[in-house]
């Protein structure tokens, strides 16, 4: 099966096992090998379709960036996950590989405050320019008064 081959090649190249037994492979990787794994998925596994990129706030364990890449021809799905570590907000960018990562990473910066190093145009995309804080973080105080409308 195609996902068993992919799992074996990821194991061979990166030394990490992929979770999941179906066509969805979940690979957890440290941030310094983030771009390498994405390039491997694109060029070797043929995952040309960049589905989404988002993040999860695990509170004191730090932020986690999640990215889903797909090979639509053979039905292979690779989920990339990386833990940035407690208090860390820096992550390498995937915009050199996928143009679609541009706005996804801007949204991720907007909502979680993750700084994607090497991003060509990293600024807020949905919220206004003068917004304070990153609202999808768990420690964001939602009901605090915010001038002038809250």
């Amino acid at each position, binding site marked *: 099966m195609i996902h068993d081959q992919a799992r074996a090649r990821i194991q061979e190249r990166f030394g990490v096992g992929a979770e999941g037994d179906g066509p969805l492979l979940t690979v957890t990787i440290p941030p310094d090998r983030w771009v390498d794994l994405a390039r491997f998925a694109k060029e070797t596994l043929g995952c040309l379709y960049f589905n989404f990129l988002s993040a999860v706030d695990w509170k004191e364990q730090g932020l986690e960036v999640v990215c889903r890449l797909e090979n639509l021809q053979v039905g292979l799905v690779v989920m990339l996950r990386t833990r940035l570590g407690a208090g860390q907000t820096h992550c390498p960018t995937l915009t050199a590989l996928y143009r679609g990562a541009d706005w996804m990473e801007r949204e991720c910066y907007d909502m979680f405050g993750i700084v994607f190093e090497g991003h060509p145009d990293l600024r807020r995309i949905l919220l*206004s320019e003068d917004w304070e804080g990153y*609202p999808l973080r768990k420690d964001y105080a939602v009901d605090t008064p915010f001038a002038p*409308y*809250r």
Partner: protein
Amino acid sequence: MEIKAPTPQIPPAVWTEFKDLQELEKYRQERPEGDKHSALFESLTEGIHQFPGGFVVTSVADAFLNWARKSSVWPVTFGLACCAIEMMATFASRFDVERLGMVPWASPRHSDLMIVSGTVTIKMAPMLKRIYDQMPDPKWAVSMGSCANSGGPFRHGYHVVKGVDRVIPVDVYVPGCPPPPESLLNGLLLLQEQIAHFRTTGKRAAPTAKID
């Protein structure tokens, strides 16, 4: 023998002898109770006096102007969210607010009423304020639906204004999520009632306690 022309007998000008006025008086006395049109007319023209012997009608200027104001409330077309669908249904032929003299108008410069129909986000609030400021005085605002009233289900979201009355003054709040066209029509009728008591003192009319 001298022939004289007959002296014309001019009847005295007594107003009771004008036949049309008699007809009018007869009509007024025979008018059935609960005649909505006439009751509406009387409530509109409070302070009307008719002088005997003439057709001069006086009224209170405020009452007359308010009658004119409430009879042509033009809402600016300003749909924000799903409540706008119900607002469009209210504007359309089935519920037909043109019966009330309301014409949905696509320019704030010609409008008297803003129906805030939907969630006001913090990013949208300055634009809403700007459109409201572009409307000429006197102007009114109806807050339609739970989101515009208080934030509704999104009240604890990070991006929602918790009630449009934090941005602009609101005259009538219409509850519902979303309010059906009947609710919005009821709110618009209440608004017309408020406009009928509008005074040019710079103060808005107190909200009516009447609900249904």
